[in-house]
Structures are given as structure tokens and as C-alpha cells.
């Protein structure tokens, strides 16, 4: 078969020159693959196409997923599973060994419970504020605005930045000689080292993670808002419905499916928060911004007394929480669909 790639005019374009070795390589591959195809048949070629992806999934996602359970039931510091000693449920028992669950200091593994507590607070605050801010932004961007795509881009911009860059940008702003202190100095306040304060650094991790990801959720909510038929509002206006009532009775119910998806996505991400925080505060001061992923990372890799078994057990517990959240999302999605169908 001849290639029917459309060409622009005559002569050689740069793209064609670059493609020459690719073409040669492909025709070289084609001959052995024809042989494979004769052996396997057309249906067998499906397996061939699927194989590389499945192999990578199998080795780097599924295998670790199942080994993780085995890991969590072994002890010691050895890296490879055959070298490790079986301890049964000891790692889990250690994680749950507490006199009083509300006080991390009474636990055998006090940093784990500190991290769990911090993460819980973080999730509650961050998810609430994230939903609030991205919903308000989406509602505003859905109004008749000049240069709407520009404003949408403004809020979307930080989404693409790497977490490390986000962490450094804000570390630079919140430090003693930073922009925030500069602004407050202009208002007559003394400079303050925000990131050395337990409460402020916690607030900073919440704020920075919202700053970085808000645009993403705004975008999803905006897509949902734009899908709501305009004539519903026109009808409401003709009936003399006040705008606030139209929001509660039209906008919110029709946005609900999108909103639920966003809530669960935010939740799942918030539980796993790590990168920005690691660069911004490093979990400090003390353990005030130590979240669960950092606990797993440090227990598994970073500390002198590393304990991969304990880290695996903690990661399985976190995984269980994530699976529950995902199932809730799937359940809610289905419910939303049914509701939509009934209408």
C-alpha cells in the first residue's frame, strides 16, 4: 500500500526530511511483523498491540500493588521481599497501638497519628475553601464578560506550574524579606517569619495548594455551568424569580453532577498532598505540616531507621481511604445520572 500522506506543494519540507529515518525504520519493522501476523492471525495482533502497555502496567502498577500487601506483613530494613522476615499483622498493630486516639503522643507511632490528624484538618479546610473559591470563580466567569478566555486563563495559569516551582514561589513570598511582609510593612506591621509559625505555615499549605489547583476545578465547573440551558433562566426571569432563588433552584441542582465529581477529585488529591508542601515547609516547623504521604515517604526512604513494612502498611490504609472515596464518586455519579434521566 502506498502512503497517502497529504503533501503541501512540491519540494521537501523539514518534516519530511526528519521523517526519512522513521520511515526506513518502520519499513524494516514491517517485514518481521508481517511474519508475526501470519503466525498469530489478525486477532493475535491485538494482543501484540496491547502487550507493551499491559507489560508496563503489570510490572510497575499491578505487581507493586499486590506486593504491597506482602510488604506490609514483613519487618526489618531489607529492601527485597525474599530477604524480609514475616511478622504478620505487627506493622498494623504498631500503627494502631494507641492509648488515646485523640492524642498522638500516646501512640507508639506518634508521627503517624500526627500526620493523620494534620491531613484530616488539611482535607476539611482545603476541600471546603477550594470548592467555595472555584465555584465563585466559575460563576463569575460564566457571566457576560469581556475577554472571558483571558480571565479564565488568569485563574488557570498556576495549574501548569510544577509543584516545586509553586512551593518555591510562595516560600520566597512568605519569607522574612518577602512580598507579604513588604505589603504589611507598608501598612505599618513588623516583618514576620510566617513559615516558622506552626499555625501560619499550616494555613500557608492550605492557601498555596488552593492557589495552585483552583483553576483546574474552576474549568470543570465552568463547563458544567455552560451546559445549563439559558432558556431556563429566561423563563425564571419572566416569572419574576429573584436571581438568588434562580441560583438555588436552577443553577445548583443542575450543576450538582459536576460539583460532586469536583468534590471527590479535590478530596482524593487533598489526601495525597505532598510535593508543594515538601518544598514549602518540609513538613515543619516541627510536625505541624507533616501530611500522610510525607510520613510514608520518610518512613520508607528517608529516615535513618527506615521501615518499609511500616510505610507499606500506612500506604495501604491510605489506599483504602482513596478506594472508598472513588467508590463514593462512582456511586454519586450514577445517582446523578439517574436523577438527570428522571427529569
Amino acid at each position: 500500500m502506498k502512503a497517502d500522506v497529504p503533501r503541501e506543494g512540491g519540494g521537501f519540507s523539514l518534516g519530511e526530511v526528519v521523517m526519512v529515518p522513521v520511515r526506513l525504520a518502520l519499513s524494516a519493522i514491517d517485514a518481521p511483523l508481517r511474519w508475526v501476523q501470519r503466525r498469530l492471525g489478525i486477532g493475535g495482533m491485538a494482543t501484540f498491540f496491547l502487550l507493551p502497555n499491559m507489560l508496563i502496567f503489570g510490572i510497575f502498577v499491578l505487581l507493586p500493588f499486590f506486593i504491597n500487601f506482602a510488604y506490609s506483613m514483613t519487618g526489618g530494613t531489607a529492601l527485597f521481599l525474599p530477604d524480609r522476615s514475616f511478622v504478620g499483622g505487627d506493622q498494623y498493630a504498631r500503627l494502631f497501638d494507641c492509648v488515646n486516639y485523640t492524642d498522638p503522643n500516646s501512640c507508639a507511632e506518634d508521627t503517624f497519628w500526627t500526620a493523620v490528624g494534620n491531613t484530616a484538618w488539611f482535607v476539611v479546610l482545603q476541600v471546603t475553601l477550594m470548592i467555595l473559591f472555584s465555584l465563585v470563580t466559575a460563576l463569575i466567569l460564566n457571566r457576560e464578560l469581556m475577554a472571558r478566555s483571558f480571565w479564565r486563563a488568569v485563574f488557570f495559569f498556576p495549574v501548569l506550574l510544577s509543584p516545586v516551582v509553586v512551593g518555591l514561589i510562595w516560600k520566597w513570598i512568605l519569607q522574612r524579606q518577602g512580598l507579604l511582609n513588604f505589603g504589611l510593612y507598608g501598612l505599618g506591621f513588623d516583618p514576620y517569619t510566617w513559615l516558622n509559625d506552626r499555625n501560619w505555615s499550616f494555613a500557608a499549605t492550605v492557601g498555596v495548594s488552593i492557589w495552585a489547583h483552583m483553576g483546574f476545578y474552576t474549568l470543570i465547573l465552568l463547563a458544567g455551568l455552560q451546559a445549563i440551558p439559558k432558556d431556563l433562566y429566561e423563563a425564571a426571569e419572566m416569572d419574576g424569580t429573584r436571581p438568588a432563588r434562580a441560583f438555588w433552584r436552577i443553577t445548583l441542582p443542575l450543576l450538582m453532577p459536576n460539583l460532586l465529581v469536583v468534590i471527590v477529585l479535590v478530596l482524593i488529591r487533598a489526601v495525597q498532598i505532598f510535593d508543594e508542601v515538601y518544598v514549602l515547609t518540609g513538613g515543619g516547623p516541627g510536625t505541624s505540616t507533616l501530611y500522610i504521604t510525607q510520613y510514608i515517604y520518610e518512613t520508607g526512604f528517608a529516615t535513618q531507621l527506615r521501615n518499609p513494612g511500616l510505610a507499606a502498611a500506612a500506604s495501604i490504609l491510605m489506599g483504602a481511604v482513596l478506594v472508598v472515596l472513588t467508590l463514593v464518586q462512582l456511586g454519586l455519579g450514577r445517582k446523578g445520572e439517574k436523577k438527570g434521566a428522571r427529569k
Partner: protein
Amino acid sequence: MSRVAEFIFRRRGRDGWHWTDVFTWVWLIGGLFIMFGPAVWLVGSSFKSPAALAEFPPSIMPYVTQKATVEGYDKPLDLYEVTMADGSRKVLAEVRRIGIVSQMVSPDKPTEIVKVKIAERTPVRTMSFATSNYSEPFTHFDFVRYLWNSVFVTVTATLITLIVNSMAAFALSKYEFRGRTFAMLLILATLMVPLSVIMVPLYSIVSALGLFNNLWGVILPTVATPTGVFILRQYMLTIPDELIDAARMDKASEWQIYWRIILPLTAPALAVLAIFSVVWRWNDFLWPLIVLSRKELYTLQVGLSIYSGELNVQWHFILAMTVVTMIPVVLVFIFLQRFITTGIAGTGLK
């Protein structure tokens, strides 16, 4: 002109500004400052000298204190404008400072020391961009190394992602075979297994394969993205099967069908996946941090975080390196944002 103004300030009601109009503009303008301000401030700061970075309150633009070489002193001295006892103003060079009194000399008369209270002098400053913040990391540090590692990881991982994912998507969209649904479900289920859950065993597998401290150890675990397979499969389902049947009659091999028919027709979806993949791989942090422990293998993100976590942070270099790290992503943002936003709005995946 009034038409333009009317368009810009289009309001909700006909009479006067409704509070929602005010709120909208406050929110938008405030958002503009909060979203762009920090990044702009970072870029501005990256051109300041270490001395200018340390001062408080900071200046908006990068300034340096002018220096002058004075006879009898080895090092160049800082120049200050001083209000003298008789009210005249003079430019003097500072020799040393003791408490609140500064000992200064006039550049023309290096022997005669004048004592000035520090409140009565202001530094002579000129605007100057410290481009050495950018050039020095390139020559003296491993920065070029990190940059190369990041580019290598991003480009290689993206190419493999495109090939491997499109092959899988082709199989899942254009062939009937036993276990197809199972394979599809398996791929989507991996969405539920994030890195943070499997990092301990994944590390042992990567080590067992000899990929620890190896850039391939960063690349391989990331290339089979469920998102990618999903996006490409959805797109390929829209390609009519008749094209494939016709090609088979012309004795095309299955590989040729994949390469010469399906791939060119999937180009728009491949472009979206390529953009996503570049951003993902360029920004990856936790996994490279685990796999790469030798300095010369660090990617930009890992190198930046390690240097910024040191005890005495060299902020002037860190800031400049951060700006360089931002560049590819900002380019994607400026030129390709449209593809990304439609991609997200269409699939809800990031």
C-alpha cells in the same frame, strides 16, 4: 469610545451598578494580582543581586549600590550620598561602620576620614539586572546537567507514552477479542492506584530491575498512563472501520494499518496527550526524588528542591533556576492552553 466603555462595563441591571457587578470586578482584578503577582515577583527578584535580595523593605526593581575604588583601599567601597553639617550634599565612600557612625572618605581625598551618622546618608544606587544569577549556574553548577536530564526524561517518556498508549488504544478500539472489556477495566482501575500508595514496593521492583539511580527508572513506570489510553481510545472509536477493511483488502499489514492510517487520523488526540505528557513529566517530583540519589542524575525539580532545602539557601541562584524551570510550562500555557482546557473540560482528567 462610549460604545467600548458600555461594552466593558456591561452590567446586570439597567439602572446603576448592582452589587454583583462590583463583586465580579473586585474578584477578577484581585484574582489577576493573586494569580500572576507571585510569579511576576519571582521573575523580578531573579534579576536582583544577593545584596539586594537580602534587604528589607525590598525594592520593586533590581538596584545595586555603586562602588568606587579609592586609593589606599584594596576592595571597592560603597558610595553614599551624605548630607554634610553645612547642609550641602556630597558623594562619599564608606570605609567601615561602627554602630550608628560610619567612617567615610571622599574619593578625591582618600586620606581624610569623615564621620557621618548612618541616618544622614543614602546609598547611591543604579538599576542593574544581575544576569550572572542565570549565567553562573550554567557554568559553575550541575545546572546544565539537570536541565539535560529533565529534557531527556520528558521527551523520551512522552514519545514512549504516545507509542505504547496508542498501540493499546488501537487494540482496544478496533479489535474484537476475548478479555477486551477486562483489559479496559484493568487499565481504568489503575487510575485508583496512585504513586503514593505503591511507592515502597515500586521502589523495590525498580531496584531489582537495576533501574535505581537511572533515568529509565524514572521514565518507565510513568509511560503507561490510563488517561492516555482512555483519551486515545475514545478518539479512535470515531474512526470508521471501513477504512481498515479497505486497507486489509489492499494487503496492508496490521502494523501498517496502525501506523499509516490510524495514527495520522488520531493526530488531534495525540497532540493533546503529548501536551499533557510533557507537562506531567516535566513537573514530576516525588518519584524522581525517590529513584535518583546521585547528584548528576537529578532532574531540575529534584535539584531545585534539594538546593532550596539547604541550610544557607543561595536564593539568587534558586530564583533564576526556578524561572528557567518555569519557561517550558509557560510556553505551553501561552501557545497551547486552548488544547489543555478543552482536554480537561472534555474528559475531566488531568
